[in-house]
């Protein structure tokens, strides 16, 4: 039964590898093929999420090095989120990616990365997680450099270097845990063996810090976020949306796994590593927003915005408090939806009009009302204006911070979060205000409706309505996340 868990991982990887053989040069067949694989696989992923807690091992080389595929509540959470977002972005990509021959390689790697993401969600021990994490890095690389320009290649190298460096830091933690843990399987409450560890406790916070920052690289933590503004503007918008919406969430999953399932709350809470990470995440929150506020290139602004928003999540996690954890996990969902919507609507604008600087967008709301309405909804949600989702998650992160074991830092954190929200308003509200209020001199006669096709607008509308609907009725989500935090014992 548990063997079925392999299907959502292997199917897209196999289908992606076989894509050049199957579709040949027939472009319509390409769309049908990719769409059916993604729809089927999303079905399998959801079905896998419906299984009870189960798992199995394959390729058991040693007790540490083995492939452990497993599903639990945390895995379900990320599985459904990533596969849902992947499905929407797929349809959008059909409208976005030019049919210039290179689209075949884009979609091949698009499918394979999907499989790797599923694998990371379903991994049951440190080794498996690490393996799929590196696979995502490699398989997503061709999507980053899709345009093939020298700048894109250079940005791609930067992306790879940072990712591998981050993963290598996490690997240090892996070796440490392999030496000092009962096991490397993810166990709620941690796996460290106090007897083996005796005398070396002093290293623990240091190793934890390395692992957190290492995995944090793909969640854009300072000081490892410099690749984000370099590579996102050069990648196609759907790829940037997936990175920001899904891949960064896999990094969050890895961090949650290391924090709560490997090291354990008791080890981390009150240590200097916790204090240091709170400061670092808050620093990143502020820096991301500030740099986004100063940025004029549309997609780069969104990239910096992701830097800031992902650190909201990391801040919520490192507070080690059920309220903040709830906020962080809610923000995983909402930021996933919101940032995907933002990148996709930015992509719709750039794709249709070629405009990529924010000051060129005056009056664009009149020409592309659907895309800009979705952008507006998502922006309002990202600032955290009720009744959208952003408010719910930020509320819980901030109150969790004040109620945590670092009340003063928590208070500072709440203030930083609000300053960042202010900056977020500064860099997003101005865009849609200009887009919809072009000024009295705006010529309505020259206006041409430049709305994208249904393939691109329908996913956008779905995402935009989700920000509002999930914000107004988050009850089921909250219950589910509280179930997870009960399991991991915070």
């Amino acid at each position: 039964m548990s063997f079925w868990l392999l299907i959502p991982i292997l199917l897209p990887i196999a289908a992606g590898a076989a894509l050049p053989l199957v579709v040949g040069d027939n472009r319509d067949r390409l769309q049908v093929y990719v769409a059916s694989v993604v729809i089927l696989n999303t079905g399998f992923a959801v079905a896998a999420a419906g299984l009870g807690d189960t798992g199995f091992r394959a390729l058991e080389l040693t007790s540490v090095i083995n492939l452990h595929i497993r599903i639990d509540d945390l895995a379900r959470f990320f599985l459904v989120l990533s596969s849902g977002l992947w499905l929407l972005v797929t349809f959008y990509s059909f409208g976005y990616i030019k049919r210039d021959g290179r689209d075949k390689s884009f979609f091949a790697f698009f499918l394979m990365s999907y499989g790797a993401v599923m694998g990371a969600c379903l991994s049951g021990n440190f080794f498996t997680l690490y393996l799929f994490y590196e696979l995502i890095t490699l398989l997503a690389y061709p999507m980053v450099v899709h345009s093939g320009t020298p700048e894109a290649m250079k940005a791609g190298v930067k992306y790879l270097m940072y990712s591998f460096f981050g993963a290598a830091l996490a690997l240090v933690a892996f070796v440490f845990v392999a030496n000092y843990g009962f096991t490397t399987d993810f166990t709620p409450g941690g796996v460290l063996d106090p007897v083996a560890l005796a005398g070396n406790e002093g290293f623990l916070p240091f190793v934890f810090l390395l692992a957190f920052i290492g995995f944090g690289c793909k969640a854009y933590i300072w000081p490892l976020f410099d690749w984000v503004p370099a590579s996102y503007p050069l990648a196609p918008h759907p790829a940037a949306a997936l990175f920001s919406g899904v891949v960064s969430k896999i990094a969050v999953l890895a961090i949650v796994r290391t924090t709560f399932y490997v090291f354990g709350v008791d080890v981390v809470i009150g240590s200097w590593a916790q204090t240091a990470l709170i400061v670092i995440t808050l620093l990143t929150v502020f820096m991301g927003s500030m740099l986004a506020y100063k940025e004029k290139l549309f997609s780069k602004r969104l990239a910096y915005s992701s830097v800031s928003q992902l650190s909201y999540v990391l801040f919520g996690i490192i507070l080690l408090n059920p309220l903040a954890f709830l906020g962080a996990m809610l923000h995983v969902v909402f930021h996933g939806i919101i940032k995907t919507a933002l990148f996709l609507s930015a992509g719709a604008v750039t794709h249709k009009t070629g405009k990529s600087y924010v000051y060129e967008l005056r009056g664009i709301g009149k020409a592309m009302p659907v895309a800009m309405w979705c952008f507006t909804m998502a922006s309002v949600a990202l600032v955290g204006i009720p009744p959208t989702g952003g408010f719910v998650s930020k509320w819980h992160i901030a109150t969790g911070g004040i109620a945590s074991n670092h009340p003063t830092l928590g208070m500072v954190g709440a203030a930083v979060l609000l300053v960042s929200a202010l900056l977020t308003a500064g860099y997003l509200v101005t865009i849609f205000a200009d887009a919809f209020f072009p000024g009295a001199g705006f010529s309505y006669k020259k206006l041409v409706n430049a709305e994208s096709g249904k393939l691109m607008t329908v996913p956008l509308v779905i995402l935009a309505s989700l920000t509002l609907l999930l914000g107004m009725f988050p009850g089921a989500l909250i219950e589910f996340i509280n179930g997870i935090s009960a399991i991991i014992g915070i």
Partner: protein
Amino acid sequence: MTFSGSPALLLLVFWPIAGALISYIIGKKNKDWRDYFTSFVVVTTFAAMTVTAFSADNQHPPYFEWSAFMGFRMYFRLDGLRAIYGVIAAFMWMTTTLFSREYFAHYRNRNRYYFFSLITFGATLGVFFSADLITTFIFFEVMSFTSYVLVVHDEKPATLDAGKTYMAVAVIGGLALLFGIFIIAHTLQTTEIAALYGAMQNYEGDMGLIYLAAICLLVGFGGKAGMYPLHIWLPNAHPVAPAPASALLSGILTKAGIYGIIIIGTLIFYQHYGWGILMVSIGIIGMLTGAMLALFSIDLKRTLAYSSVSQIGFIVLGVGMQAILSSDYNSMAVHGTLLHMVNHSLIKLLLFMLAGVVVMNTHELNLNKIRGFGRGKPVFTLAFLMGALSIIGVPFWSGYISKTLLHESLVYHVWHFPVYTWWSTYFQITEALFTLTGGMTTAYMIKIFVCVCLEKNNYNQNKLSGFNKRYITRTSAAVLIVCALLMPALGVMPYAFMIPIATFGQEFMLLFTAPYHIGFLEWLSLRGALASITVGIIIYALVVRVCLMSKDEYGHSVYINAWPSSLDIEKRIYRPLIIGILPFVGALFARTIGSILPAAAASAYRAFVSFRNFWIEEHAKQEQDAAEAAQAERAPHTQGDLSQIAQAAQILNMRFSGDFMRVIFSSLAYSLLIFFIGFALIQIVVFTG
């Protein structure tokens, strides 16, 4: 999803919001039907609101609780002040929407206006019904953001600029408010408004946190209320916003802010002397500044906007006075505050609609251009007169009642100092300034009334008089007359209408009995008003007629704007700070911190590259030497075999020299390198440990 209580309250809030969507859809097809439908929505909401409010039992007020909205509790109540303000909000939206049909007849984007106006309506009702700070915040934010669209409706450059100020105050205020609620939720462990009082009485923690929270809440609510020094959006937004929107902004949205200020001033700081002094000080500065600027302004709507700042100052002063006076004697202050809120809403509704009548006919607001507009327009002049008399506080008009109550509470406090102290002097000065502000109110109202309705325009009186008899539709005229007649109707019989209204709302401010009796026609009460009016007439005669008017080149007297433009708190302080200085400092900080690692990595990379180049060069040199040596030794016939191997190697090399493969392999190698370093580190730790 679990509901309890009366769903009528939820319906009242969501019916306008649903109506907004429906009217937008209708408006895509047919403009007339859209207008009928929006009128239908506001009239039905007003009717339902009135019925619900009047049938409410104040002992067991209707409430509505929805325990899972956004993961929080949505909690509405309809008692006292909430019911009063629900009715006033519904009344104001009804009148302005009926008036809008004529006002917007020649505007673009009307669909958008009605859509956002109705959403703002629903959200405003939500704010006034809210019985939990989180519910308040949710609707408050929706109200702030949707009303932005009303402000910037005509999209002229000045409008968009004012819109920026409005949005900045809304966003910054909203975040300050949220921070305050965070702290309240943490320290007092409740956000239910009625429970705040009890939680404060039992609170034994750090008072510093409570003060911080209160200041944050005050910034949030005060920004919306137009409280000094956060009033900056009022004088900018009002002249450029459409008149119906101005009426709503000034009349009702500011009161949503006051609603919050009352919560801080009574429920959190019940009978807190220090907070009372703070409120009185802010109030008196706002009153004076607003009145002063109103006196100098030569733009009709800007005058009214500054007048709002001034009148909000009166209300804030009232909130302060009820905290200063002990709970047995503060009933006058409580009633004065509540009634002045009500009066100011109704008066500003009327006056801004009148300004709208001027704008829609002449498209001008400058006093010199619209001078004499009211000549020969009896309905207009009468309505203007009613509004002016009421806001001045002339006996028999509604404004007199609330101003007298506020004034009497000040006088009472001054008289009841047992000994002479600094504070008694402070309150004596405050009382004098109160009278002076009343005088300035009189002066600027006389100024605009005389200018618009009595004086003759020296240049185009014919054009202005040409509008006579066709300057307004019957619907609008009826709306104006109803609003105008409310002023004397309420003021003539205070004990029949106004005092019962105040008594109905007083429990919100924790006043349960009202042990006072004021004869509003006794000399003691009248003399305050008369003093103000006398001072006002003197100011008008000596300042306005002499200093604020001069002769133009044709020898006609014109109004001049004598206020130095450099004295502008927004342009001098707020804008440079928020647009220039703070982002610069923040970005400098962010860039510096952010470039630490990339800079280190870049220099490490440069070092690596130069080392590699050195190595390659050395290697090449060695190879060259070796090759030369070999060349000298070996016979030429072995050349063929070598080249075959070299060819194979070259092919292999080409395979792997593609950018993609090279990058992947070098990165993998790099990652392995780091891995081994880490592994070695750990091993060292393990073995030494």
